[in-house]
């Protein structure tokens, strides 16, 4: 097609040029998000801390001063270095088996992150799949999913997790799967309602008018629009999963000993908490800092990706 036809077809080519000069195109959604992120303190702080923690987790073998599993019974229950009786070779002291507490806390970041991310991923897969299916197909499928959700919500989730871990047996994988398998309702509720909303939008109708199958529509049209929300829930669920793991381990049904899990460490330190309070306080602080960082990040991501179009 040559220029003349264009011209004859559209009297507005002039307009578009003018438009091009005057209204420079806005930013892409990604650029907008990054621009906002740069000025979002909470997000930056959260991201910074998390990055540091992630480094700790990844580089644990090089950063940890000792083998976190190495027991040294004669040196057990050493207080932190700054307390009377502490040694500088064991900065945070040692635990009941004489293992270096600092090294265990550093390795603990690994466990927490692994479980957090693993469980949140599993939850996301279950929740998003069910949510999109229920929202998109509706009808009896929706009813069935709704039933599942009620089942899930009606039973106290910690109790359910405990029962499952108790019966299946303790291991990191089991904990990841069980926490993941009991934390998908949030994903589901959000993706379902978003899908319900999106499926009424005209671009979905346009897609089916152009011959897309339902699967194509669900995956190619609807899913990309859920990514932001899923990401936000994901970060929040990572935090929830980490706390859940700690709680489970605290109650004795989380990851198995001698894995260095913060919750487990708190549980083990609890018997001595009035006398060696650092056994409880230090891993608690680590947990708190990690979770708060993730939450800040999650809140930040939500603030940054939210579309505040007027209408």
């Amino acid at each position, binding site marked *: 097609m040559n220029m003349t036809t264009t011209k004859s077809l559209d*009297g507005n080519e002039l307009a578009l040029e003018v438009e091009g000069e*005057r209204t420079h*195109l806005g930013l892409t959604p990604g650029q907008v998000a990054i621009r906002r992120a740069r000025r979002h303190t909470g997000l930056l702080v959260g991201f910074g801390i998390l990055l540091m923690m992630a480094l700790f987790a990844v580089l644990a073998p090089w950063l940890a001063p000792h083998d976190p599993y190495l027991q040294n019974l004669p040196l057990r229950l050493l207080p932190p270095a700054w307390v009377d009786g502490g040694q500088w070779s064991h900065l945070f002291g040692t635990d009941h088996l004489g293992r270096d507490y600092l090294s265990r806390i550093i390795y603990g970041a690994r466990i927490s992150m692994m479980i957090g991310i693993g469980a949140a991923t599993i939850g996301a897969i279950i929740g998003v799949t069910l949510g999109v299916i229920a929202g998109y197909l509706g009808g009896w499928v929706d009813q069935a999913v709704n039933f599942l959700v009620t089942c899930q919500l009606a039973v106290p989730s910690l109790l359910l997790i405990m029962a499952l871990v108790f019966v299946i047996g303790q291991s990191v994988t089991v904990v990841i799967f069980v926490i993941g398998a009991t934390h998908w309702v949030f994903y589901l509720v959000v993706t379902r309602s978003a899908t319900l909303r999106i499926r009424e939008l*005209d671009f979905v109708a346009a897609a089916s008018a152009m011959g897309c199958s339902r699967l194509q529509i669900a995956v190619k049209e609807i899913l990309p629009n859920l990514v932001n929300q899923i990401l936000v829930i994901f970060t929040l669920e990572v935090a929830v999963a980490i706390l859940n793991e700690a709680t489970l381990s605290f109650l004795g049904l989380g990851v198995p000993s001698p894995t260095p899990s913060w919750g487990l460490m708190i549980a083990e330190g609890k018997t001595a908490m009035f006398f060696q309070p650092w056994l409880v306080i230090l891993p608690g602080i680590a947990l708190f800092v990690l979770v708060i960082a993730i939450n800040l990040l999650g809140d930040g991501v939500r603030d940054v990706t939210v579309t505040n179009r007027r209408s």
Partner: protein
Amino acid sequence: MSTESLLEIRDLSVAIPTETSTLRAVRGVDLELRRGETLGIVGESGSGKSMTALALMNLLPPAARRSAACVNFAGADLSAVSEKELAGQVRGRKIGMIFQEPMTSLNPVYSIGRQLTETMTLHGDVSVAQARRRAIELLEKVGLPDPGSRLKQYPHELSGGQRQRVMIAMALMNEPELLIADEPTTALDVTIQAQILHLLHGLQTELGMSMILITHDLGVVSRAADRIAVMYAGDIVETGTTGQVLEDPRHPYTRGLLECVPGYREASARRLGSIPGVVPSMTGEIRGCAFAARCSRAVETCFTESPPVRALGSARTYVCHDPEETPGRLSPAEPPVARAAATRQDQDCVLKVEGVSRSFSVRRGMFGKRKSLKALDNVSLEIRKGEVLALVGESGCGKSTLTRTILGLDIPDSGSVTLAGRPVGELPPRQRARMIQPIFQDPYSSLNPRKTIGDIIGRPLQVNQVGARGEQQARVRRMMELVGLPTRVFNSFPDQLSGGQRQRVAIARALILDPEIVICDEPTSALDVSVQAQILNLLLDLRDELDLTYLFVTHDLSVVGHLADRVAVMYLGEIAECGDRDQVLAHPKHPYTRALLDSALTIAPELDVPEPHLTGDFPNPMNRPGGCPFHPRCPLADARCRSRVPERERSTDGTLVKCWKAGDAGGVFSQLAKGQALDAVPTPENNKEESAP
């Protein structure tokens, strides 16, 4: 009309700080309003009309900052009084306000009785009983039957028109001196719009109020306002009496705007005039004239210097450098495109809808039972090759449901849609996609916000596996050129485009598979007139270029008059009347068509808002009246209409009508309308001559 000034605004500005910069929504507006006068503020979306009104009452969004040299209202300077005083003395008491969205402007959890009476009791010294009496009186006045029992109802039990009436009653509870109506009818159907405007007009004269009527509809201001202020990019560019401004527009923007309206003056032309470009982003300082970039007459100074205010007589001003027409920038007067329609009369039918019915089952409320809602009732239609068939009807009458059925996206309960000789339901989706494609109403929701423009337009090719990747890209670029999209938006996201551009993207996507039939479901009703004009032009050009057939859904009769070959009028899921455009618009057989035509407001400053002939609202489709579904609103209805569904009949001039009174509709109506309204709808034949003063 008294000449005493009630309201005087000087240099009112509103700035809204955003994340990256400051949006200056209103820039130094000057306005004046006399007692008893109606001032119409017109302008395209985003021009700052609402912000001006809200700034008066200090109801701006929390972030917004207001500044004004003075806002004199009945002797007091509103820009200086405290929030408390404003709330206690002015808002709701001296100034009443009606908002655009009747559906959301009433508090859903309180009864309307409570919401009405508290307007009075809040401001003290009135007993609840008194307030109730006043509320009942006002509800009666705004035309709500049985007002006593209405007080117990909740907003969701009322239709949009009824809610808007309640809003009006609420605004009038304390007999304010000024009523600000911000697009009071935009969300309503034409028939209701006419009723509401009529009502407002009556109340205003009765109570001696002044009124500010904000709208983007030039037809509405032309009928309802005494004076007009045209707003552009946060500033008033032209004011004057309605007649002056509309008959003799001085500002190029006003002129351009008028030319965009289908049916205004040069309506016989197939191409509408248009204002190129879009409203400038209102962030930061605008140098020179804000309109310069879109102005066909703009010269050097327009871009560098603020235009001066020019006065013509006492209350007539406009803001412009007033340069000569700039050669070269002038949009060429389009030669009238030869109409091929006449020759397309009895061509072969490409799409046939036969006896289609569709019901939904809906549950109302949490405890409600499921009820069946009949959205389509035995609809039959034919679309012929190369024609534009317009489908008109009020909101909720089933237009979209019908288009979805035609597209094969919805399966009818009974009846069939035949496309190229085969039922659409049986066509494989991809084959169907190559024959028929939709364009939707809302350019925001019709594009996937997560995909780039290139992807969106090329997606049909991908799905249908047409050609290799490179070839697809080339086709997308060609298509973008064809619909007038700059290629640099190829990798942009929909959010970065203006409404008009988005609609072009939607058009490109619909056309890239080379379909025969395009179903346009109100493609321009979300757009401003200037953009609507561009899109309508484009659609018509494309039709001729690509030999397309359109089913064009709309509720705007002026658009119908502008582009349709044939018209089908829908009411409550039925086709009430269907025939050639000229026949239907000039000699409507069905009383409903007649009423629609009466209610459509063309630009005619010399005329008032017509008296509505239809009583009542569009009924809830869940409680369809028996017999002829139109009988409760029909001025001609008799016992037969109430009891028996009318047959579909072909009248002498070839239109199909479904009415017992088809024969005498014209006669009775012309009596009722007292000769006022035959010109109400612009058909190419009758518009110009008859509407001239």
